[in-house]
């Protein structure tokens, strides 16, 4: 398919996700608790998109490769090395904002 409104269903039934480094794709996948391989193309992407992918890789949440190394990555990957991705905490933001605005 070309475009869907939401990939949530497909995500939930997947065992492994291979994606580009878009933030939405990475975060949605990690939040579903699915193993993720991020394929980066440093020539095409603007630098800031890479920042998140690199950090997620550094923190051990995703595997990274580029188009030419994808096959060998799939052959040699050990998904058990991937660390679970804890969800963000908007409650901390709410608490902070309440303090700023004066609601206690």
């Amino acid at each position, binding site marked *: 398919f070309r475009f869907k409104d939401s990939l949530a269903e497909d995500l939930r039934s997947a065992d492994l996700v291979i994606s580009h480094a878009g933030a939405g794709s990475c975060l949605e996948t990690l939040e579903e608790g699915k193993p993720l391989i991020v394929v980066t193309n440093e020539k095409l992407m603007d630098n800031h998109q890479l920042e998140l992918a690199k950090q997620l890789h550094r923190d051990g949440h995703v595997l990274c490769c580029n188009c030419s190394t994808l096959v060998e990555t799939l052959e040699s990957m050990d998904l058990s090395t991937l660390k679970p991705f804890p969800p963000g905490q908007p409650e901390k933001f709410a608490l902070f904002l309440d303090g*700023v605005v004066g609601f206690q």
Partner: protein
Amino acid sequence: TGGHTTEILRLLSCLSESYSPRHYILADSDNMSEVKIRSFEQKRSETFSNSQFTFHRIPRSREVRQSWTSSVVTTVYSIFYSFPLTYKLKPDLILCNGPGTCVPVCISALLLGLLGIKRTIIVYVESICRVETLSLSGKILYYFSDYFIVQWPDLKEKYPKSVYLGRIV
């Protein structure tokens, strides 16, 4: 737009009823965000009885990768548009997270403050995508916001006046 809307709705998800009425300011070219926001507000009204929100449209201040000089022109044009809107709304609080749309609105709020008309608290939350560098909106509003929140420790180090609460979306 897109990712920004998803992020800001997550930020709003734990806010109490006191944050009302909510005015959502969108770029005129943005089609998807209104749908997402309505869905969010719809869910919210299941818990909170008083759900007042409105949509406002302003011209988009800058296209992705638009040149610097033409961006200044389009941003100035957006300020002429957003100033009357901000003047009418006189918000107590502006919450934004990075799309070009937010810069003219914040500048308008600053002008209102300078003119002694209304003092608005400006809270900027940089996107979770920004790990090592700030967006252009972030670079500008770092100096003009009351609270500038970053979601990765690298940025807190580089921008010491920022607030770091960890990942909040």
